[in-house]
């Protein structure tokens, strides 16, 4: 018995040494792409295979992030430390750019630059390829609004929303609703309040690309008038939201409430189209603007949330550039972006339309030019997540009043360290 044990042990040790010689990743001399949406990983892998076959260059796709507890940024740092930086990776905005600045290639001369208006630029130079267009506003259930006698086209100001919410709230039982709006403010949904809703304060009603409010806030100057109106809007949303979803609900709970027609409005963006699909929600739905000001603000927030960038130290820059070009100019690439991955393309030469209703709604607002910018990335993630989000959370759980909310927000901007 012992002899068998010893023999097994020896075998295992030999095995270990054999493995130690480990064959490293130099098998394919192609390019590596790392992205942050695991749900489109399968489609991307398929497209990668198709592209490989037609171009003759190998490509490895890695998907990190989502809700697995590790973010793309973390994995990038780990891979960089390991000496394995990918050839193409994703950045979300200026903060990510600053971190990887010395590694990001200038792409101003690429063909696709001319066909998009939302490429990532710094000091006039183009660095990022927009992955998709995304937008959000107040998603509404067309059937419910019709039954309640509310015209979505009228929902463009705080006053209009207040009237509409009160009306629908009074008819909750008749319409089969649990609440008027499905809104979330718990700790792990801090991005709904401190990223998206916060952006209303920064850009609602302002010309696209206007940074005046952002600059003031960054310098600690708070426009109390604008902030007060914004606080009224936040209070409105919180008051007419399902309290369970608001204080403890997660993403599935919030989106699910809208999909099962338990809420008339949803505070999310067109990325919920796949969720609607999975839920079998076929009722008519579209976006209406946010009502964070007394004046009319007839537009929704549209931009590109993430960008592909090329590693300047890559050994295969030409191949990487070709991959990005092909996504825009080949049928296979366009098909992947719009039909397979269900994304709204950021390029004007692409005529395919995505299938999701909310994505189509974004496209409509975008073509009409009724868009406001995404400015929340001008503030650091740490500021939004660790300083602002708890304030929203306390307001949602009624620990602080509206005036205290305003004071806390003002103090946050005045004392901002990063």
């Amino acid at each position, binding site marked *: 018995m012992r002899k068998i044990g010893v023999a097994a042990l020896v075998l295992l040790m030999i095995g270990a040494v054999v493995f130690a010689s480990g064959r490293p990743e130099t098998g394919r001399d192609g390019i590596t792409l790392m992205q942050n949406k695991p749900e489109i990983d399968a489609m991307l892998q398929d497209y990668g295979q198709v592209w490989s076959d037609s171009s003759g260059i190998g490509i490895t796709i890695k998907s990190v992030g989502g809700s697995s507890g590790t973010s793309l940024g973390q994995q990038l740092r780990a891979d960089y430390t390991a000496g394995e930086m990918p050839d193409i990776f994703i950045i979300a905005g200026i903060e990510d750019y600053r971190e990887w600045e010395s590694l990001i290639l200038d792409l101003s001369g690429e063909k696709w630059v001319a066909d998009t208006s939302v490429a990532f630029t710094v000091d006039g130079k183009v660095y990022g390829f927009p992955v998709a267009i995304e937008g959000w506003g107040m998603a509404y259930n067309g059937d419910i609004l019709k039954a309640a006698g509310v015209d979505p086209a009228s929902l463009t100001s705080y006053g209009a929303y207040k009237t509409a919410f009160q009306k629908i709230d009074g008819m909750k039982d008749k319409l089969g609703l649990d609440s008027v709006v499905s809104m979330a403010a718990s700790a792990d949904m801090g991005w709904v309040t401190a990223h998206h809703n916060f952006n209303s304060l920064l850009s609602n009603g302002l010309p696209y690309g206007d940074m005046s409010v952002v600059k003031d806030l960054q310098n600690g100057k708070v426009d109390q008038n604008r902030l007060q109106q914004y606080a009224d809007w936040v209070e409105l949303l919180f008051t007419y939201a399902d309290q369970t979803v608001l*204080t403890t609900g997660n993403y599935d709970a919030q989106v699910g409430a809208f999909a099962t027609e338990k809420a008339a409005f949803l505070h999310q963006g067109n990325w919920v189209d796949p969720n609607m699909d999975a839920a079998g929600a076929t009722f008519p739905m579209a976006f209406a603007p946010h009502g964070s000001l007394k004046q009319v603000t007839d537009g929704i927030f549209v931009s590109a949330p993430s960008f592909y960038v090329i590693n300047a130290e890559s050994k295969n820059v030409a191949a990487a550039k070709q991959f990005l070009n092909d996504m825009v100019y080949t049928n296979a690439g366009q098909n992947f972006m719009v039909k397979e991955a269900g994304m709204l393309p950021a390029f004007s030469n692409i005529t395919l339309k995505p299938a999701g209703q909310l994505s189509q709604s974004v496209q409509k607002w975008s073509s009409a030019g009724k868009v406001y910018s995404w400015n929340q990335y001008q503030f650091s993630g*740490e500021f939004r997540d660790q300083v602002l989000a708890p304030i929203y959370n306390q307001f949602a759980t009624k620990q602080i009043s509206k005036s205290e909310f305003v004071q806390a927000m003002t103090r946050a901007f005045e004392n901002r360290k990063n």
Partner: protein
Amino acid sequence: MNRFHRNNVTFWVFLAPVLFAFVMVVAIPFVIGGFYSFTDWNATARAGQGLKFVGLHNFTRSFQDPSFLYSFIITTIYTLVNVVVINVLAIVLALAVTSKLRFRNLYRMGFFVPYLIGGLILGYLWQFVFNNAIPAIGNALPFLSTLANPENLMLRHVDTSIIALVIVGSWQYAGYIMMIYVAAIEGVPTELYEAAQIDGASGWQKFRGITVPMIAQAFTITMFLTLVNSFKQFDVNYSLTAGGPATSFMGESIYGTELLAMNIYKVAFVGNDLAAGQARAVVFFVVIVVFSLVQVSINKKKELEL
């Protein structure tokens, strides 16, 4: 009873594998990490701009941060409660599993099995239990209807969220600790019990005289493990409460159930400041070492007494 001399070949040969692994995997990275906490290191492209030595800056900054101080307090409270709950539960279960109950093998497996579910999913599961299952029970049973009120959800308030963390942490970990107590109890030679029986000892006397001292030895191990693991808790914290409901502390709004490990994680990865995270982790480490040294020495004294 000195078997070997320091120069003895067997001593070093037997120690070699673990020493090698330890140095390569733990010791050297630890020293490197400690060094980084005195710099502005960020492990990314910016490091190419040269590492700046910042002395104690990261450390002083962490002690001025209300969320870090709050995390300390809340983690200590959580640890104390958790240690007690887990060990009491584990001892009770260990006794049940080593007794004459008919289904004891079923219990042994059943109570251990929660440890099988990995950290993140565990949190999401229990989130569902607290947010959906318990209110559903409240809806079904009239006399428990307060459970169905959204105001009474456990995860909505900071103090009950901590209790929720303890519940989930204990549920996951009690079986693990139970195994150690079981190993200790089963290590008692049955002759001891038989001899006591012959001497006419009652069940209680047997328990007090034989079982308890045997468990006491395992106590040092289990206390240490539960203390350290509770203090380091991250997975369940992240997925169950994500830092939990916000609260006011030192005049600022901060997250109310953010334990130390999570606070360090947020500083390092959300705040993009790995060096500051390292500094906090070093402080974290020193505190745990102090706590566990105190705990072990107290336990050792008790052990000798018994």
